[in-house]
């Protein structure tokens, strides 16, 4: 999905700040526009302000400053039950004293919807998550994954235009989590709802989202579609937070519009794409993804600067090989290679030369 226009934004945060204690800002000057039908993920470490943003949108926290608009209408003063926003909580928050059916009926009852229409909507919502046979069970009788589905159905049963999800898959095991990711994604595609999803799991963010907002220290560090986020991180925090990356410290020796020459601490020169370095002599951190590093001479991109490396450790991980190298005196340089037919397994102690295409090395802030 293309970046939505400002005026077409369905949800809009404008200069929003939030402080709990009057001394420190948890959310600092947040500006964010979410388009209708978009799946936007707020990703960040704990304490980065992402959950606070979600809670402000849901109405459980008030913004200290700034305005939040939903479908063009300011909602700062609207109490949570009048916002018509579905929400899925981390611990599901299914009412333990009600059956599954009663849980789903609750949002319809408080809206004064008649019995027959209620039944129809509940049946439809339960079928949507393949839980049609469970209406008379109690939440405690369900497994974590089943509870998760019911929580999802309950948040959708009253047809909200916006659904918020606060780390909904955090309590599930890996396999179930991955399965539920696809199911949520499909529901989103089929229903055309807008989803704001909060997680600290980058894999989840990358697989599900149209766009990801990476939070740190109360600010959005980068707002971009998953591929752009992974391949073109805007700063060293994003590069470090999303996926694995190798970092090489140096100073900018020469800089052009799309090429920078960086002299590493050990004296070698490498080429990189300048991202947030602007002038010669600046300190920088060059970030390279492990899977973009090449060590076979015949596959080396033409004109690539190569570095000497010593193999320290080889780890077999099934689908990939992970090899740790010592490069320019650092011994945490990692490369990944696919476990393909004829792939070479490097031996510890082996001396190799590594290189990469200059556009895969990104010169970022030294952070």
């Amino acid at each position: 999905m293309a970046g939505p226009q400002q005026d077409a934004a369905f949800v809009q945060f404008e200069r929003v700040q939030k402080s709990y204690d009057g001394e420190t800002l948890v959310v600092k000057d947040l500006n964010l526009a979410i388009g209708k039908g978009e799946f936007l993920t707020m990703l960040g470490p704990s304490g980065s302000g992402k959950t606070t943003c979600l809670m402000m949108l849901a109405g459980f926290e008030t913004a200290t400053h700034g305005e939040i608009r939903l479908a063009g209408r300011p909602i700062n003063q609207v109490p949570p039950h009048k916002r018509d926003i579905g929400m899925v909580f981390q611990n599901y928050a299914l009412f333990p004293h009600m059956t599954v059916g009663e849980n789903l009926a609750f949002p319809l009852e408080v809206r004064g919807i008649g019995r027959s229409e209620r039944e129809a909507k509940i049946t439809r919502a339960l079928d949507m998550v393949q839980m049609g046979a469970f209406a008379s069970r109690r939440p405690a009788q369900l497994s974590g994954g089943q509870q998760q589905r019911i929580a999802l159905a309950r948040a959708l049963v009253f047809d909200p235009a916006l659904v918020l999800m606060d780390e909904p898959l955090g309590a599930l095991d890996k396999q179930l989590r991955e399965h539920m990711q696809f199911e949520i994604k499909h529901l989103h595609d089929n229903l055309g709802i807008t989803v704001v999803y909060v997680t600290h799991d980058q894999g989840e963010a990358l697989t599900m989202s149209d766009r990801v907002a990476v939070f740190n220290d109360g600010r959005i560090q980068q707002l971009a579609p998953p591929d752009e986020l992974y391949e073109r991180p805007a700063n060293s925090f994003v590069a470090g937070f999303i996926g694995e990356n190798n970092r090489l410290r140096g100073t900018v020796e020469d800089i052009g519009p799309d090429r920078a020459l960086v002299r590493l601490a050990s004296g070698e020169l490498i080429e990189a794409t300048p991202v947030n370095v602007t002038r010669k002599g600046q300190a920088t951190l060059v970030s390279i993804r492990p899977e973009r590093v090449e060590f076979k001479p015949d596959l080396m991109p033409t004109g690539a600067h190569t570095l000497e490396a010593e193999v320290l450790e080889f780890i077999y991980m099934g689908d990939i090989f992970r090899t740790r190298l010592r490069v320019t005196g650092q011994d945490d340089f990692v490369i990944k290679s696919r476990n393909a037919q004829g792939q070479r397994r490097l031996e510890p102690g082996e001396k190799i030369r590594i290189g990469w295409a200059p556009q895969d090395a990104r010169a970022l802030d030294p952070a």
Partner: protein
Amino acid sequence: MADTTLTRTGVLSTADGRPLKSALARAQSRAKWRAFLLVAPLLLFVLVTFVAPIGQMLFRSVHHDGFSRNMPHLSAWFAANPRGTEPGEAAFAALADDLKAARQNRTAGEIGTRINYDLSGTRSLFTATARSADKLAPPYREALLAENRQWGDPRLWEAMRGASGALTPNFYLSALDLQRSPDGGIERAPPENRVYLMLFERTFLLSGIIMVMTLVLGYPVAHLLAVLPLRTSNLLMILVLLPFWTSLLVRTTSWIVLLQSQGVVNNVLVASGVLTEETRLQMIYNQAGTIIAMTHILLPFMILPLYSVMRPIPPSYVRAARSLGASSWCAFRRIYFPQTIPGIAAGALLVFILAVGYYITPALVGGASGQLISNLIAFHMSKSNWSLAAAIAAILLAAVLVLYWLYDRLIGIDNMKLG
């Protein structure tokens, strides 16, 4: 099934052929013995100090041999002649023999006291007649009637017949404002003697009021404690528990200081012009005093179970309800409140049962109208009428057990959470 085999009869057995069940029992018996030994001291203590006295109390409530032991001849006559037999010379002769013996053994007081329980004003009859028993000569009927006309009263003979056996239900009758009629039937006590039923009624009514007041006052406090951050709520919890660390007597007497007609509350109200000197409120030495002081004293017993139920309710339930479209009142009523019912039930039962048996506070601040049934039990104990005190106490115990049973039927005892 590597180490167990299924024999032909379908009984599981271990690898060496012993039945699995007995092997398991043997393996666990040591642990069971150890568990029993750990509980044993308390079990012994409870048996000696709790079960035995209660048993003795229940026994005393139906047993009193003050008459039957000291009046063997008359008791034998009662046993030989059925109810309705006119007491003739033989009966009076037995009575005179027993009275003579009573004079020698100095037991006339004990005998009189026993009959006095059933028919008031008769103790002196026994002591006075026994004093002059040596001068009694046949025919005894005329002699005794000459001594005192009361010896011919059929009510007296009915009372003596009732006391001629050591076992008697009469103390229970008294505790329920009932008495024996001259023909041996059961009738209501004369209105001026009816006090117990009224006191039972008052005790349960006041306990109910106190229970409701602790709930109304305690529920918001428990909720606040449950939603505050742990550090703050621990501090506030100390304030809730503070009364436990202060002597009950000190707390009760401080209520006297506050509430009496020349006390702090009245003085403030008069000084601020709300009341005049003439309209000072009587807030103590009556039911109001009992209710105020006991509500305060029993409040922690309501707050603690409520708190222990409310604390683990995650705030996300109410949030979820709000996000699903419920107003804050609706979210409370439909989502929060139902989940606190086990705490309410536990607190209410605890406060009610404690209030029903409360003694010291009503004794100090209750005046005449604020006395509870336990004060009457204490009164009878101080008068050495152990059997009547035991009968009242047994009725109270039964009432509490009935409540407990009702509670189990309505809410379920396993649904209760005390902490």
